[in-house]
């Protein structure tokens, strides 16, 4: 047995994992990062549109600050988020982006003078002042009051990831790729590291550390249609679940993105709509203003996705061999804009669909030659490993989580575009820093015999799989799971469908324990990899489906046709899932969100259907309190920081809590 010791062990080398590694390494901790693929290939590289941070630099983002960002985020979450975490996040995001700039991320910068932009399908002129020339630019995204999404053309994730990976290289972080964590080592409520399989040699090693972080990204690949990379299988979240001690939060909160291209599912960034692109139906009609007169294409993602599906159900979809879709039209932005700011989008359309999205010509049916066929698909996992605001699991000491793998809970039931890559780096800073301190304060008090028992268990498991001579084929099981999830646990959900899904998934899970493996090699064996991954994925799928079945309301991305109202009276609570060894179904419990502690009590979001809320009595009560406090403190001449603190105090490391400077307003 090989035991590799470190202070900090970080599983996952996307933006969240790498930024956390910077934090632990900066405090002098020996840090190891594990990744299934070379870290610069992580899924984070695929983020195109950008990162939200309330810099307030450009004309269209004037007046932006943490308060506005906070309000957008809470509304976006449909009041499902932890407001303290949302505050921590909004306060730190401008610092995160400024830090990334100093590490060489070539953010698109503002040029002084006039430029033309498309706003609400109209050409408009925007004038930038001399003062902001050379500062970081931002574009519009769904669900935000200000233009807040900072970007590098449409390759934001790529440039951010390379920037952070470069910083890791500079600090000498020990990065090991083609390594997959397949189990956590834990004892008496404390985590000590992971059992890790080398994806080249097939060897199992024990990585033992003072603190362990899971930053393995989302679990989109449990769905048939997803924008996610093929490695987004949720194994990190699953191994946390399998401890039986750590819990997953809000797994039913799954986001569907409105505009992946059909059929490949490759995403066309929200920046397309942010920059002025519009949606059209089978007749070429722009339909979003009919449903959402105020925010139109730029309502939040859950809303736009549902409106598209609703419109298709009304018979307005375009028929194709891959089912029905609608069109995304960015040709109205002009070739120059597309070729500079949406170049990857253009390439995706050209290569995968043979269309040029800048082409403004119409065909004989009045359909634009450059319009791209799109359909909502799975996109983001709001749920994940439940953590405290420090990023540590409340039930498994020494286990941290950040990024999409975590339910840190600033996204609640719907995350806003641009808030995710922002979360990865912000959580990397905050959680990474808490983890660094944990490493400094805690010893590794575990004996090697105990570690050996974990290695043996996993070794036996692999041996058993290789020798398995059961009935079922693992690839078939996987595909069936994906179909079930897409059929019954996607954008529109009903009790009946979910019931069926839960039953079938449980059946599949049992089948996954009775498979036949044809390839008997211990390494270089993709079939074996599926064999140990798929049962883990099925556990996650069951958490999602069961969570959705039991939650008899609609909130954010979780939409129940049989319970269309958001039910604050009964459901303002977080779902917690755990898994007992030997069970075939998760155990669900609930943790209430306390309205009386919220800075922003639940209300209407400002988009989507009105009057669709079953109110909680505390909402009005708390709102009154909030209004009175605000008024009183304003009259006393208090500033916005003091008012905020009186409404809802939150803890944050002083270096991150420091006020953010902005053009024209200083620190105010």
């Amino acid at each position: 047995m090989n035991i590799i010791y470190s202070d900090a062990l970080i599983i996952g080398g996307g933006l969240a994992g790498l930024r956390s590694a910077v934090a632990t390494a900066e405090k002098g901790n020996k840090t190891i990062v594990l990744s299934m693929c070379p870290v610069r290939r992580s899924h984070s590289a695929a983020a195109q549109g950008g990162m939200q941070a309330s810099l307030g630099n450009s004309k269209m983002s004037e007046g932006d600050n943490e308060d506005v960002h906070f309000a957008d985020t809470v509304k976006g979450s449909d009041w499902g988020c932890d407001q303290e975490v949302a505050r921590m996040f909004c306060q730190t995001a401008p610092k995160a982006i400024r830090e990334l700039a100093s590490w060489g991320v070539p953010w698109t910068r503002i040029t002084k003078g006039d430029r033309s932009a498309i706003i609400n399908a109209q050409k408009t002129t925007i004038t930038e002042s001399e003062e902001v020339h050379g500062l970081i630019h931002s574009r519009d995204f769904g669900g935000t009051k200000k233009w807040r999404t900072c970007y590098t053309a449409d390759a934001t994730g790529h440039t951010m990831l390379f920037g952070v990976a470069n910083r890791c290289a500079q600090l000498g972080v020990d990065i090991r790729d083609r390594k997959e964590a397949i189990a956590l080592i834990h004892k008496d409520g404390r985590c000590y590291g992971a059992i890790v399989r080398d994806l080249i040699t097939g060897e199992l090693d024990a990585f033992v550390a003072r603190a362990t972080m899971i930053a393995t990204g989302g679990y989109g690949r449990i769905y048939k249609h997803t924008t996610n990379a093929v490695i987004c299988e949720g194994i990190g979240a699953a191994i946390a679940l399998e401890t039986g001690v750590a819990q997953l939060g809000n797994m039913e909160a799954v986001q569907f993105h409105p505009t992946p291209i059909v059929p490949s599912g490759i995403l066309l960034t929200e920046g397309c709509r942010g920059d002025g692109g519009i949606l059209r139906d089978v007749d070429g009609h722009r339909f979003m203003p009919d449903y959402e007169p105020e925010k139109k294409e730029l309502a939040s993602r859950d809303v736009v996705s549902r409106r598209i599906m609703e419109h298709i159900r009304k018979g307005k979809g375009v028929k194709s061999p891959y089912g029905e879709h609608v069109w995304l039209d960015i040709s109205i932005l002009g070739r120059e804009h597309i070729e500079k700011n949406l170049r990857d989008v253009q390439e995706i359309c050209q290569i995968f669909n043979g269309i040029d999205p800048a082409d403004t010509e119409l065909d004989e049916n009045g359909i634009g030659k450059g319009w791209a066929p799109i359909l909502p698909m799975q996109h983001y996992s709001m749920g994940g490993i439940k953590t405290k605001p420090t990023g540590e699991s409340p039930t498994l000491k020494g286990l941290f989580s950040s990024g999409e793998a975590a339910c840190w809970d600033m996204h609640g039931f719907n995350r806003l575009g641009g808030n995710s890559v922002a979360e990865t780096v912000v959580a990397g800073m905050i959680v990474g820093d808490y983890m660094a301190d944990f490493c400094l304060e805690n010893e590794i008090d575990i004996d090697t015999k105990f570690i050996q028992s974990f290695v043996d268990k996993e070794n036996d498991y692999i041996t058993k799989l290789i020798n398995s001579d059961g009935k079922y084929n693992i690839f078939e099981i996987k595909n069936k799971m994906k179909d079930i999830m897409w059929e019954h646990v996607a954008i529109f959900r009903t009790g009946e469908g979910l019931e069926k899904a839960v039953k079938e998934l449980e059946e599949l899970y049992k089948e996954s324990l009775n498979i036949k493996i044809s390839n008997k090699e211990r390494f270089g064996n993709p079939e074996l990899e599926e064999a140990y991954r798929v049962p883990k994925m099925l556990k996650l799928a069951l958490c999602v489906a069961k969570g959705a079945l039991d939650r008899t309301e609609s909130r954010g991305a979780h939409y129940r046709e049989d319970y269309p109202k958001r039910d604050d009276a009964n459901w303002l609570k977080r779902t917690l899932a755990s898994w007992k060894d030997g069970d075939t179904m998760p155990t669900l419990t609930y943790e209430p969100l306390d309205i009386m502690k919220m800075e922003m009590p639940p209300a209407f979001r400002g988009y989507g259907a009105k009057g669709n809320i079953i109110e909680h009595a505390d909402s009005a009560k708390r709102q009154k309190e909030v209004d009175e406090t605000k008024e009183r403190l304003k009259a006393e001449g208090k500033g916005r920081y003091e008012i905020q603190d009186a409404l809802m105090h939150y803890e944050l490391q002083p270096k991150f809590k420091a006020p953010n400077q902005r053009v024209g307003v200083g620190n105010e």
Partner: protein
Amino acid sequence: MSRKITIKAFKYNPLSKISKPHFNTYELEETSGMTLFVALNQIRENFDPDLSFDFVCRAGICGSCAMLVNGKPQLACRTLTKDYEDGVIELMPLPVFKLIKDLSVNTGEWMAAMNSRVESWIHTTKVTDISKQEEKVDPELAQKTFELDRCIECGICVAACGTAIMRNDFIGAVGLNRIARFRVDPLDERTDEDFYELVGDDSGIFGCMSLLGCEDQCPKHLPLQNQIAFIRRKMASVK
């Protein structure tokens, strides 16, 4: 209209005592818009669960899936089967990089060494206070830096390079492009002398034979030859 296509894939596991290099041939039904990502997954699921290959983003963004397709290095996820008229496609792993198995090579290890050699990070003496307004950067310089920052480390330029195939310490277009990227970045304080220390020899800038293979194949259309020529002029004048 659908047709049958034939995919011949290289198979070999260098870590196995019994494995011998050979090709396996698979026949499958072509579907519309089929990419090699779709085809290879079908093969794995239906015919050969042992076949190894690397995809991550399957969207031409992450650089994982470069391989030789009928002899040409390119991203497999972006390769449409319909572009092969006779319906026969032969797949081999990228040369230069260490073979892991079948179509999978270790570009990660190679790129990590390249990154440490060119010290692929901003060198600066400035200390940034992240609660203060960011330093201004000329928008055009930011754009120029971005243009060169778009490399996805797919390794295609290396596999397409005569020098890289002959000498294994050659830094390749990808490494030289990285130098060019930090050279234009106004935040990096390194001088041409500093860059010369890193790549001022035959395994660096003077190893390039200007065969243009790199630029012809680069899936991100980076202006590699221009950059290399420019750096070479700069480096030549250092001494």
